[in-house]
């Protein structure tokens, strides 16, 4: 495959977003890939996480810039940051 072909192939593939390290930390905190069904950014400062099974996480356990857990129901949480989270590389709900 020539260099030009590599460029073409790369262009054809969807760009992979660079996910901030903190997102991996969050995923671990909530039971790893197996338990995190979906994780997206929403509402400017929130990360919305759907879980396969409930996980109890306190505000103190959250990595910065996240400061609070908003438990929506047993399998759905929002994590609130004190900043815009759209830059963390997560897909957005909107």
């Amino acid at each position, binding site marked *: 495959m020539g260099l030009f072909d590599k460029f073409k192939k790369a262009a054809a593939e969807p760009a992979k977003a660079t996910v901030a390290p903190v997102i991996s930390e969050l995923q671990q905190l909530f039971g790893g890939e197996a338990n995190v069904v979906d994780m997206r950014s*929403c*509402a*400017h*400062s*929130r990360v*919305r996480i759907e879980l396969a099974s409930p996980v109890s996480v306190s*505000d103190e356990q959250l990595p910065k810039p996240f*400061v*609070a*857990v*908003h*438990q*929506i129901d047993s399998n*759905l949480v*929002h994590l*609130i940051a*004190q900043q*815009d989270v759209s830059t963390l590389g997560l897909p957005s*709900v*909107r």
Partner: protein
Amino acid sequence: MVAQQNLALHAPLTGVYVAIANIPDPVFAEKMVGDGCAIDPTSNLLVAPFDGTVTQLHDAKHAVAITHASGIEVLLHIGLDSVALKGQGFKTKVALNQQVKTGEPLIEFDADYIATHAQALMTEIIITNSDQVERFEFTNKALVQQGETLFSMTLASAANTADASAVAEHAESASTESATVVLPNPQGLHARPAAVLVEAVKKSGCQVTLTRGDNTAKANSVVALMGLGTKRADHLVLTVTGSDAAKHLADIKGVIDAGLGESFAPLTEAELAAPVAAPAVEVTQETPLIGVKEKVAGQLAGVAAAPGLAIGEAFWLQTELPEYPATAADSAAQAKRLKDAITQSDRQLEQLIADNAGKSQAEIFTAHRGMLADDDLSQSALAALQSGASAEAAFAKAIDAQVQILTATNDPLLAGRAADLRDLEGRVLKNLLGVAIEVTYPANCVVVAKDLTPSVTASLDTDKVLGFVTEVGGASSHSAIIARALGLPAIAGLGSDIADIKASDKLMIDGQAGTVRINPSSEQVDALLTAKKAREAKLAQAEQAASEPANLKDGRHIEVMANIATAADAAKGLTKGADGSGLLRTEFLFQDRQTAPTEDEQFDSYREILAAMPGKPIIIRTLDVGGDKPLSYLPLPEEENPFLGERGIRIGLNRPSILRTQVRAILRAHAKCGNAKIMFPMIARVEELVAAKAVVLEEAQNLGVQACDVGIMIEVPSAAMIADQLAEHAEFFSVGSNDLTQYVLAMDRGHPKMAAFADGLEPAVLRMIAQAVKGAQKHGRWVGVCGGIASDPEAVPVLIGLGVTELSCSVPVIPEIRAIVRQLDEATCSQVANAALVATDAKAVRALAAKVIG
């Protein structure tokens, strides 16, 4: 020196504190709306941050303003760009102009829905008149708890705030200009465009108003502009007063035309065209083709408001007030007049309370005194006086505002209290106008009036007045309550037919039947008296025989049970001869509380009720609520048609934890007392019953107890149609005739025009019941009825004839229903039922039944 006032604002939510500069919207961040902060919430119920009045409630339900007695106004704005959700995800808990206390619920919201559909969920808490605040002191916490102090304010003394003289100075060279503007903003003037407009207005230094229809708002207030409830393409009148008004008018109009900082689609020609007023529609009163009340010559029919019989001469009571001027020049003199009239009214009420000590009337007049002393009422009247209203008009306007709040609640009881406010209005206005409040009644009269206020009712001279009839009103109005307390027969809601009554006509009123006979013959008087005596004797006999078994003449036993909600109901049911309870409503355990009842709480209640009817079966219906009657801790989205939405068992199936907790509590109580059965409401499909019953079986196994019988309500037509399939899984059926009737006939039983037709004895409904019985019998199951028709004497032979073996009635009628059962036999009931199934309507069915019950 004027003492400075401090005001604390308590966090209306729990969540993350956000400094105003960090709000991701320049309109808020740059304090264009005012100073304050935001909270990114971890709770979902917005509560009042201080005591005050709801002065703004946006149509999109995302924003509310509260004004404190000091005049400080806070705007609470849930989310950013949330106006575009058009109310979806929000549920208001207050009405406009309602007084609220700190911590009182304002708006409940679906946090996940808003977070996933709006730009942000953070909630702005902004003091819109922050120029009246000298100093703000904000919390230094990153996380705040609802109710703790979010910020405190040192209010500026009056001398430091902009006062009217500044406007007057400005007004010396002022002129006024106005123009029509067409609003291009897609969501009207919500917070952001309103703030941009306010900025433009402030820069102009002019007084600017914006008018939409009959409503005008000062354009220096974001909240007032939001309160106009504008929409795109609204034609608004922009009025500018000040020096160089024409130039400022053009500037401000330009800002509006440019979209006030929002992008928008250009206005179409149709939108730009001046709205054409809809042609006046001439409403003609037509006689409907069906449902016209059969007129019996010389007889009027109304609502039975208070029982009793009276014969007397008609005395028309005029309750209209003389006309009064709407405006007055001297507001100080008007204020004094009003104050004097209020004092005079208060003294009259005090006297009435003393005269009626220990009677229910005294409580009503005490409530009137409380209303008269209400701050909101006096402040509202004062505001009207200051804008040039006469004392009479000011008080009437203040009452109007309160009446609107009450009627807006859609709560019939609160709306009924509006009559008390009108009563108070009449008293104060009569005192203002010097109109005599006391009336001289002729001897042996029946009072005839459009409506009677509680005051007039309570002051009726019972030595002379024998009863009353009114054009409007109902059985639950205060005048009806007072009539019952006074022992006066009363008929309300005669409508326009009341005009048939002429002064001095002889009236015979039957407060039980709700009928008025004009100039009756002596035979008619005798006949009525005789019939009443006979009925009274029959009821007394039924009471005496209440404990005797309810067996048909040919021996078959019919269970006559009680519909109950409490242990006291159960005990009362027993005294009336009930064989048990065919319906225990459990909603009372779940209502009027902030959290769901625990399993133990429910267990205690069920055990107490089961113990109140020892050895007798009690059918416990699981929670039956829905979008029309949501619970505060169980947020249900507002539904376009709640009666076809998530209600009854559907709630339990969608939120199994609620169902499981209740089932466990019932099973535990059953294990102790042994006489419970479980009944699921609103079952429409087999799958629902199977899933709900599985919960009972699983929880019985988990608890290690015996499962009790499981039955269902037959109240959805589909359940009647597939009764044979449902009967495979249900041990019994109980017909909920009220809902079944409204679903079968597609008639809202609360609809003023439909209610009269929504009769459970309509043949279509009876055929559904017959179908349910047939399906049940296929599997050897029994069928009861716990809806309204079980308490209806004329329904008894029909239902028994259809194969119903249990009737669960309201407690007071149990002896009468038991007595009717005892006078019937199997063959007669079958004949009536067969004829009823092919009858043309409920009226024909009732005629058939009436013949056999006597």
